């Protein structure tokens, strides 16, 4: 599924933001109509019928409602990644045109931070958003430190009768930059904390699904079994090209890799070509360092493609403090 960045402006300043590196280097304010039509055509001829709208905060784009409606009219399933922090006018406009659409056509992933990180005004806006779009919304949460809490998320799911699923992302490093993330040596500690919520998830029938970049070996077999049940058979320990498309028609593999081999969408004829291009880049990096841990180099689960060894940005981060002696393609 391709991710289209409508704008690079954001309303929040999350300490873990892995899009930060990309946002800083951008001079473009927002996606244009002409570029949106080109991207929609490009995805359609590539056989892709699902698209995610990202930012920054995508709802800040002046034509957010029109763009979303247009893509839906073109028979794409649109998923919007939002903070849920919308101005009253934008929320009203979104409600008027989008709230009647069915979930098969439009969904939202509302990325929540712990309430302590949000102002009162932000929290009120999020709750207004969920009151309107709760039936179309799944919660998302990014883990960026070893101490975290899911209770406020479970409470929000219950309060607004949201989909009983939480999309869990891990904050990843931005190679060469400073952001807050879970370093490799603390991943196991973070997982112990995560596992401690299993009973809570089970009691409230909520499935905690991983986004990408989680290694499998940090869980015991018993924990994997429990997670498999909680997630109704769906578990993901993959890391591969997500394919982000910027407002300036640049493409890159994913945010942590946004400063490596950024290309123009016009250089490719299909999504398959882009995917192959970045998959090859991933493979080159993986041939230098298998994954998050040393054991990843010879891990049979990695060779069997069950686990990719965590986020590739960790591997790239390790190249920063050494002489450039590796394959030249893996450097920016």
């Amino acid at each position, binding site marked *: 599924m391709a991710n289209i960045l409508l704008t690079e402006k954001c309303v929040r300043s999350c300490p873990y933001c892995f899009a930060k590196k990309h946002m800083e280097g951008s001079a473009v304010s927002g996606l244009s109509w002409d570029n949106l039509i080109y991207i929609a*055509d490009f995805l359609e001829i590539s056989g892709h019928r699902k698209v995610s709208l990202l930012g920054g905060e995508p709802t800040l784009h002046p034509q957010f409602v029109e763009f979303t409606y247009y893509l839906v009219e073109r028979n794409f399933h649109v998923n919007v990644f939002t903070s849920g922090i919308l101005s009253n006018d934008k929320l009203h406009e979104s409600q008027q045109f989008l709230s009647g659409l069915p979930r098969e056509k439009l969904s939202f992933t509302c990325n929540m931070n712990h309430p302590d990180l949000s102002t009162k005004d932000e929290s009120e806006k999020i709750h207004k958003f969920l009151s309107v779009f709760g039936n179309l919304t799944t919660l998302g949460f990014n883990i960026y430190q070893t101490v975290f809490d899911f209770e406020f998320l479970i409470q929000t799911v219950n309060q607004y009768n949201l989909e009983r699923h939480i999309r869990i992302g891990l904050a990843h490093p931005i190679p060469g930059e400073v952001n807050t993330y879970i370093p490799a040596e603390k991943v196991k500690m973070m997982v112990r904390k995560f596992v401690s919520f299993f009973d809570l998830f089970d009691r409230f029938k909520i499935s905690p699904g991983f986004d990408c970049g989680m290694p499998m070996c940090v869980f015991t077999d018993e924990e994997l079994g429990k997670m498999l049940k909680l997630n109704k058979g769906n578990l993901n320990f993959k890391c591969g090209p997500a394919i982000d498309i910027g407002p300036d028609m640049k493409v890159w593999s994913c945010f942590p890799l946004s400063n490596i081999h950024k290309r123009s969408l016009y250089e490719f004829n299909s999504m398959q070509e882009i995917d192959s291009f970045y998959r090859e880049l991933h493979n080159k990096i993986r041939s230098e360092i298998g994954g998050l841990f040393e054991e990843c180099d010879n891990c049979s689960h990695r060779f069997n493609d069950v686990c990719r060894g965590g986020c590739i940005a960790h591997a790239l981060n390790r190249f920063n403090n050494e002489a450039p002696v590796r394959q030249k393609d893996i450097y920016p």
Partner: protein
Amino acid sequence: MIDPILVCPFDKKLLDKLKRRKVVIHTNDLNVLPHILKEVNKSIDLHALKIQTEKPLSTIVFEEKWATLPMVIYSTDFGEFKDLMPQLGKIRKSNVRIFLSPHREHNFTGLRILSSLQISCGINFNGDPLNWSLMNDLMHYAIYGRAPHAPVEPFDWLVSHYHPADYTDYDFVYFNNPAKYLHINEKEQIALTETDLLNGNLIDEGIGSLDNIEENRKYNDSLNFRYEIMLRMNECAFCSAFRICLAKFSSLPNKKDTCKVFFSDFLDAADYYYSIKNSKGKHLWQL
């Protein structure tokens, strides 16, 4: 006998006299549509209903009952997509082509939006000075665009009627070709094009004269107008794209940066489309 389709205003007296003929009714007033609809059901053999409006497209309220009318709407402005959003379903159900003026830059984007949403549309490409670069982009989208989209005129019409050994006049799209259309007003004055009728440049008068139109000298001259251009031996006569532009922009001062570039690309596109349409694929040897 030649039986041209007559482009005429919505005038009941005139239409009563045109009962056995196919007509294109033109109007500037959307409010007369219910009356036209009534007449169509009674007596008119309607080829198309041409509506010209100064209102932005997005402000026109489409009605379900128009679905049976073969309509073409000429609007000066695309307007706001947001206003159009609730109407998209009704527009798609209608038997309508939407033409926008080339004089507003955002109309070119508007046409791509409409086409990509499977709504037939076109640019009102009628002789005025234009933004040739935007025209070229739109033409490329219309002809080379790989994603499914609705036709964009006059590009789609021209490439689907083009023959490399013949002349192709895209003015058919605008009801301005005497081989198929003639224009008539309430006074039964007859002209070759809408502009000629407005300027009083007539070829004949009286509906009865239409029965012998093939004997009309002005009419016959118009069908062979291209010979006259060729004899003038000016830049247009030597332009490779003459076959599809037919010197419509002969008054432009700097052709090599304007119409010539565009029409040469358009001709390439027409040739490309023709070769695709007529390619019979690989021939396997026969037993």
